[in-house]
């Protein structure tokens, strides 16, 4: 869960990492602009990198200038992203810029601290141009950094004396925040030293582990809420999210009603491989409830782009009988006309099959367009038939 710069800075303030005075403007009302000293820096809030190049970072010497610039940036697009908030921050005279970050080295399975004396540029660029200047310090997980280690890191940035102590203090606070709040990344780029020897985090990039948010009510209390990783959610994705269903809209006409995520991903590949176009990705998660399964079907049936629905249940922790019951109940209640070509196998398969056979016998008209294959039909055949059906109904 990536945070906006202004949210990251809220957390920095809590951890006493120095940030400049600022206000957030999110509507076409500018009274906050009276609360700040000019000149200022105006920064459109976006998760994507390269904000400077995209024209989202501007300077203003007066309140009037600031208002004019904000008007241009608010509601503008950064790639597919609409800018909803602008951070207006006091401008300072910068002497030096540094890069510091706590992160997780995934291949090594260890937390690390990265420091570089060239701040203000993308770290990936520096890593290519001057790899020796990107310093990495590895730590054991869940163990706090010692103060002497922070001083070593600070010294490696070429600092000494009072400045060394100032930066070491920020280093240790950043690492504490990284551990305390279950961060995937906590980055300051740039960390600046001003002409007057003061230190400030000019930017804040914080990426939280969404799976650990259950133990961080303070994040919610700070007004920071869970959101999608990158880009805006579509209307349907938003509805799905509310119901706790991982769902991604794609461009095609074949609704995908898979079991778990892994097969969902493979099913999308298979549909494309055989010349079809999937309409979505979806994941039931382990052992979905009846309501969830019915909601999943609803998302597909109610999507006008979907011509046919491909379904697969390979019952592991999720049982075939539960799946079958949800399917027939959905059909009874909603009487969907859309064709569904599905396959059901795995745990409690026989019980599931009995449920479906009985429903079919009782209401043949409702199940005319619904086919449920068993374990002896390869999944590829089910997919091919769905693609053919979608074409016929398209």
């Amino acid at each position, binding site marked *: 869960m990536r945070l906006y710069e202004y949210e990251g800075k809220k957390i920095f303030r809590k951890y006493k990492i120095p940030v400049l005075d600022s206000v957030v403007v999110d509507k076409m009302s500018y009274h906050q602009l009276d609360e700040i000293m000019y000149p200022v820096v105006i920064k459109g809030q976006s998760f994507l990198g390269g904000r400077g190049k995209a024209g989202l970072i501007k300077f203003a010497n007066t309140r009037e200038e600031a208002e004019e610039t904000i008007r241009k940036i608010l509601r503008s697009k950064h790639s597919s992203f609409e800018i909803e908030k602008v951070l207006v921050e006091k401008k300072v005279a910068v002497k030096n810029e540094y890069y510091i970050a706590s992160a997780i080295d995934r291949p090594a*399975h260890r937390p690390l601290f990265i420091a570089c004396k060239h701040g203000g540029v993308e770290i990936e660029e520096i890593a290519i141009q001057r790899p020796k200047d990107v310093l990495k310090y590895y730590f054991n997980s869940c163990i706090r950094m010692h103060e002497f280690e922070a001083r070593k890191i600070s010294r490696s940035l070429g600092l000494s004396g009072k400045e060394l102590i100032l930066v070491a203090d920020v280093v240790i606070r950043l690492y504490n925040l990284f551990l305390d709040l279950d961060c995937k990344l906590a980055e300051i780029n740039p960390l600046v030293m001003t002409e007057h020897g003061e230190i400030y985090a000019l930017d804040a990039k914080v990426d939280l582990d969404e799976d650990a948010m259950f133990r961080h009510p303070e994040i919610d209390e700070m007004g920071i809420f869970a959101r999608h990783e990158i880009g805006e959610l579509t209307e349907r994705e938003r509805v799905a999210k509310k119901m706790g269903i991982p769902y*991604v809209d794609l461009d095609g006409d074949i609704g995908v009603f898979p079991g778990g995520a892994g097969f969902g*991903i493979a099913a999308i590949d298979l549909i494309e491989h055989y010349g079809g176009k999937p309409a979505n990705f979806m994941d039931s998660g382990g052992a979905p409830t009846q309501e969830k399964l019915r909601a999943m079907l609803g998302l597909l049936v109610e999507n006008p782009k979907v011509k046919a629905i491909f379904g697969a249940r390979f019952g592991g922790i999720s049982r075939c009988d539960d799946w079958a019951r949800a399917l027939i109940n959905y059909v009874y209640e909603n009487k969907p006309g859309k064709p569904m070509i599905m396959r059901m196998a795995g745990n409690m398969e026989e019980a599931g099959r009995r449920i479906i056979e009985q429903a079919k016998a009782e209401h043949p008209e409702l199940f005319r367009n619904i086919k449920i294959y068993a374990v002896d039909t390869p999944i590829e055949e089910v997919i091919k038939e769905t693609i053919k059906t979608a074409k016929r109904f398209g």
Partner: protein
Amino acid sequence: MAIIIDESTKTIVQGITGKNASLHTKLMLEYGTKIVGGITPGKGGHEVEGIKVYDTVEECKIHHPDASVSSVWVPPRFAKDAILEAIDANINTIVVITERIPIHDMLYVRERAKDKNIVVLGGNTPGLVSPGKSLVGMLPRITFKPGRVGTVARSGAVTYYLANSLNLAGFGESTSVGLGGDPILGANFEDILRLFEQDSETDVVVMAGEIGGVYEELAAPYIKEMTKPVVAFIAGKAAPQGKRLGHAGAIVEGNMGTAQSKIDALKANGAVIAETLSEIPVLVREALESIRGYDKSRRQK
């Protein structure tokens, strides 16, 4: 032999009184898995499916010192503690069914397991099965048949389809292992490939990965060292950038974790790449024929 579990392996179930854990305890017992005890703190003295429940893993170990494998079914916020408890009690292999365990918890657990050479499978693993011998986890039992193909996959359902398509083609599995869908896993592809390489009952290995993370890439160099053929399948070629596809681990971030980068790394190190699931049995047959051909030509010399 099969890997990790066989007919003599004694196992325990952590979180046994939960709804899913108790259902799958029943299914595992029906399969023939030897479950010697369950653990739920505060429920010591109860019974689930005829299995005695203990308050702590330690107590269970006192009564069943030969218990060597645990499956963990507790909710994510208790997972770290449950795994550490199993490590503390010297359980050799810990199969973590729980999904969406916090990343920092998993990093810590990995370090502690490594200190003691303990294998942690998962989080978010469906478990593993040595067909006809033992099953630990929630894999659907009818799907797997005894045989000489070792399989290892990130996702549960892909593990099932993989076995299903191998079985339809007349093959069976020595052991099928699910690594799990979480972003930080205990055991990775390389760990399991090493076990299959040593296993006298495995002739060929199938690995099925998916987008996200770097576990497939990390395993690639080891494939070059292996004497046994490896058939690889990667799901997610058609996945959109920057969207998390269900599994916490399945997201393409920048250039990291794309299907193509994985396929390239595996191919460059000698794995045979299957484009679809149904191509896997065909490639397995070819790999086995080439081994037999190689044996024959050696014998003729």
